[in-house]
């Protein structure tokens, strides 16, 4: 083989068939333009025993891309499978490797959830990029056989006041809302974090949760020789195939590359029909195997289905319904047109399958059948254009153990102690700090964003933003429900990737537990810079190690996730951002603990220990623009204990409210609880903490604020004492403080000597987003 080389004239004007590939080994192929390395191309030739056809090249190039093959991350991600308790994970029904993992939540119910990134498309075209991100993750959940229940959207943007953020953020938010609202899935949570490193590289992650009965779980495999392969949903167009046009242009069009959009446009209405249609065909028992069409379109769906099944499949590519009749076979194979699914159906079920599609006005066509050839063969109007072993496309791509190096600046960062930064001491300074903190973009009210999302549709949303976790009811009879949170303080990860990953996990775990749900499983979206940068790669490896260790310690498995590399602009990589999603189960959603406290007289407790932990804190970021020091260590045994107490407290009616303490410390937690309930409170520092600023803004992990009715105080504190969890009495709900503090008729928050009305806080908290992004 002699890959590359421009001496040989390219093909022109004729179909590149397998026969032709055999007889013209010397033809130069544009593998480099398609992102393949010379040795990767050589390996393809070796697998096939000849040069690939241009269609085969299209398939290999897209399936062996970083995005689809996980070639840089695979060696590390293995830990998620390897680090597991003896006897495996009891709650896991389907593990990593399928479209999404599935966990048992009891009563015959199973839940699946997963988070994915759509970062780059959302930078190019914020609305459509974000919209299709939602669409893609929903199809992953659907393809497991689950009814999608809710979505969440962890987002990261450049500085809040940067002009580009004003372009990107409103578009992303409108896209997520536009798609999710039209699809009829409630948006129950997410994150919005600003940091300079995300300028030019926003993160748009999307999470979906779905539920099904155990017997309804479906997998992506093409079983049963003679079964039919059906492609249904939207027609195939030229979406997202900008890259492969090099093939089309060389092969088919002497006049230069055809105009192909690299932007995918979503049609949420079609996706809604696809959901209902898919659930109907699944429940009617008409489907042997099912797969969504995501990143690599038909290439991915056919090779994965074949690879997971009997190993053989034959496809008539010319049967694919096209939106754009000028598409070449290579382009059809790589098209990323949205809202398509692929199902394997027995011949005697095909008519019933087609009837259901017709009822939902969804177009469907049989494109092929399952064979026992061990090969994936594809024809184009009778000519063979693909003949490959499917495993080599789908599962046996290249794997790299890339060089790693500990970032050279880590020691200097650690030495730059955040605890040495000047803190406010006087009541006046503390008050000013409080108002500035609640108005800072990362801590300010996000309702400008979340009010653009439907949180009510489907009628099962029990908790949604701004609560710690989103919670939806699964079973209306029993009240069984699930809670999900996503979190990541990327500054912690930057300062100490191993601990930072555990802290992200701990925070997400804690957010779920404080609602009263028992954490069960983990998904993650690992957003990083270039894997070819050894410092990024080292950080990535440390994060995966930390997450895998943390999951083992907490007793919850990683069930799936996504890796997004190359999140960097010319000079900066993003903060390493492993977004961690934790799923929990609650037997009766009536027992949940919301964030808002109840009536007068209830007692406020701070659970856990407060230390001087300002490294990576929001306070250091907002007040000093500082990132340095040694972040707190994650104490996962303590997190488990805290979770046990929060769950028992909710279940047994000892708590009226609970709120996790994280970004912005206790001050932020108290402010959010007060704003949510509209009732004031008096709060004081526990004896353990003498410095008010530490009490208010330190970000020691393993803490939560809980509110206990007086009648339950004895029982609750006895439980904490018996289990060894520090519970500090730090305040009381008090609607009458205004009169004592000179604000008659107003609700007032008193923290130590600082007095501020809820109206003042609310004004500061609410004004930021409208001021930045318009009313």
């Amino acid at each position, binding site marked *: 083989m002699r890959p590359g080389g421009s001496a040989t004239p390219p093909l022109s004007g004729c179909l590149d068939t397998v026969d032709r590939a055999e007889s013209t080994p010397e033809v130069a192929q544009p593998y480099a333009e398609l992102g393949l390395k010379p040795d990767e191309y050589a390996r393809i030739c070796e697998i096939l025993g000849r040069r690939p056809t241009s269609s085969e090249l299209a398939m290999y190039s897209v399936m062996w891309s970083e995005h689809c093959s996980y070639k840089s991350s695979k060696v590390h991600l293995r830990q998620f499978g390897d680090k597991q308790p003896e006897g495996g994970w009891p709650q896991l029904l389907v593990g990593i490797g399928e479209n999404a993992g599935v966990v048992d939540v009891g009563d015959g119910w199973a839940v699946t959830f997963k988070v994915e990134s759509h970062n780059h498309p959302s930078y*190019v*075209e914020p609305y*459509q990029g974000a919209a299709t991100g939602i669409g893609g993750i929903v199809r992953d959940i659907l393809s497991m056989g689950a009814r999608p229940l809710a979505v969440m959207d962890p987002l990261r943007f450049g500085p809040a006041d940067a002009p580009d953020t004003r372009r990107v953020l409103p578009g992303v938010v409108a896209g997520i809302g536009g798609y999710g609202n039209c699809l009829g899935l409630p948006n129950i949570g997410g994150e919005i974090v600003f940091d300079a490193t995300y300028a030019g590289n926003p993160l748009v992650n999307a999470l979906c949760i779905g539920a099904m009965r155990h017997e309804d779980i479906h997998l992506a495999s093409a079983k049963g020789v003679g079964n039919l392969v059906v492609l249904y949903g*939207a027609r195939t*167009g*030229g*979406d997202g195939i900008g890259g492969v046009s090099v093939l089309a242009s060389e092969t088919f069009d002497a006049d230069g590359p055809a*105009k*192909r*959009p690299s*932007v995918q*446009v979503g*049609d949420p*209405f*079609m996706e809604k029909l696809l959901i209902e249609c898919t659930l109907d065909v699944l429940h009617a028992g008409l489907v042997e195997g099912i797969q969504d069409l995501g990143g690599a379109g038909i290439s991915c769906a056919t090779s994965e289905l074949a690879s997971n099944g009997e190993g053989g499949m034959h496809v008539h590519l010319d049967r694919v319904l096209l*939106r*754009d009749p000028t598409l070449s076979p290579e382009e059809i194979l790589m098209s990323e*047109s*949205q809202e398509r699914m692929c199902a394997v159906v027995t011949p005697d079920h095909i008519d019933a399958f087609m009837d259901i599609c017709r009822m939902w*006005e969804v177009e469907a066509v049989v494109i092929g059948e399952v064979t026992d050839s061990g090969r994936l063969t594809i024809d184009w109007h009778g000519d063979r254009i693909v003949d490959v072993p499917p495993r080599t496309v789908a599962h046996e791509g290249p794997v790299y153990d890339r060089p790693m190096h500990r970032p050279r600046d880590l020691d200097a960062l650690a030495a730059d102690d955040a605890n040495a930064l000047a803190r406010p001491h006087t009541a006046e300074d503390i008050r000013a700090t409080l108002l500035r903190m609640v108005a800072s973009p990362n801590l300010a009210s996000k309702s400008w964003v979340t009010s653009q999302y439907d949180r009510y549709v489907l009628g099962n949303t029990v908790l949604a933003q701004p609560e710690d976790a989103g919670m939806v009811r699964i079973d209306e009879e029993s009240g069984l429900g699930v809670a999900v949170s996503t979190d990541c303080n990327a500054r912690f990860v930057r300062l100490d990737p191993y601990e930072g990953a555990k802290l992200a996990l701990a925070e997400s775990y804690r957010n779920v537990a404080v609602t009263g749900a028992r954490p069960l499983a983990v998904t993650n979206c690992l957003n990083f810079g270039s894997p070819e940068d050894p410092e990024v790669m080292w950080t990535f490896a440390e994060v995966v190690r930390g997450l895998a260790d943390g999951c083992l310690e907490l007793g919850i498995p990683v069930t799936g996730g996504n890796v997004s590399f190359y999140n960097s602009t010319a000079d900066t990589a993003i903060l390493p951002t492993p977004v961690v999603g934790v799923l929990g189960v609650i037997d009766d959603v009536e027992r949940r603990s919301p964030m808002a406290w109840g009536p007068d007289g209830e007692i406020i407790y701070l659970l856990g220990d407060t230390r001087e932990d300002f490294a990576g804190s929001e306070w250091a970021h907002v007040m000093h623009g500082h990132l340095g020091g040694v972040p707190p260590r994650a104490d996962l045994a303590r997190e488990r204990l805290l979770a046990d107490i929060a769950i028992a407290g909710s279940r047994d009616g000892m708590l009226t409210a609970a709120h996790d303490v994280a970004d912005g410390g206790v001050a932020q937690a108290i402010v959010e609880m007060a704003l949510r309930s509209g009732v004031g409170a008096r709060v004081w520092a526990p004896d353990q903490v003498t410095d008010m600023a530490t009490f208010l803004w330190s970000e020691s992990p393993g803490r939560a604020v809980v509110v206990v009715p007086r009648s339950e105080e004895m029982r609750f504190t006895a439980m904490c004492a018996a289990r060894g969890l520090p519970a500090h009495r730090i305040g009381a709900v008090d609607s009458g403080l205004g009169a004592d503090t000179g604000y008659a008729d107003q609700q007032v928050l008193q923290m130590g000597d600082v007095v501020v009305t809820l109206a003042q806080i609310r004004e500061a908290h609410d004004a930021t987003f409208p001021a930045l992004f318009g009313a």
Partner: protein
Amino acid sequence: MPRVVVDVMLKPEILDPQGRAVMGAFARLDVHGVADVRQGKRFEITLEGEPTDEVLAGLHRMAEELLSNPVIESYTLRVEDAQ
């Protein structure tokens, strides 16, 4: 007063779900003979004075940057006399 009309349409290669929905409705309503429907936006801009080069240059910039999204749409701009 003179009027400028800007028409913004999705580029032909971009999926137009709205146009497709209209097509579907045509079929259900027994309207035949239609091969394709695309839906776009029309802006009618009434000027205060004459369509000078400067004014038109400004409007072209707006058509390009604000009224259309060049990633997925294209526009045409023309001066009309308002009736």
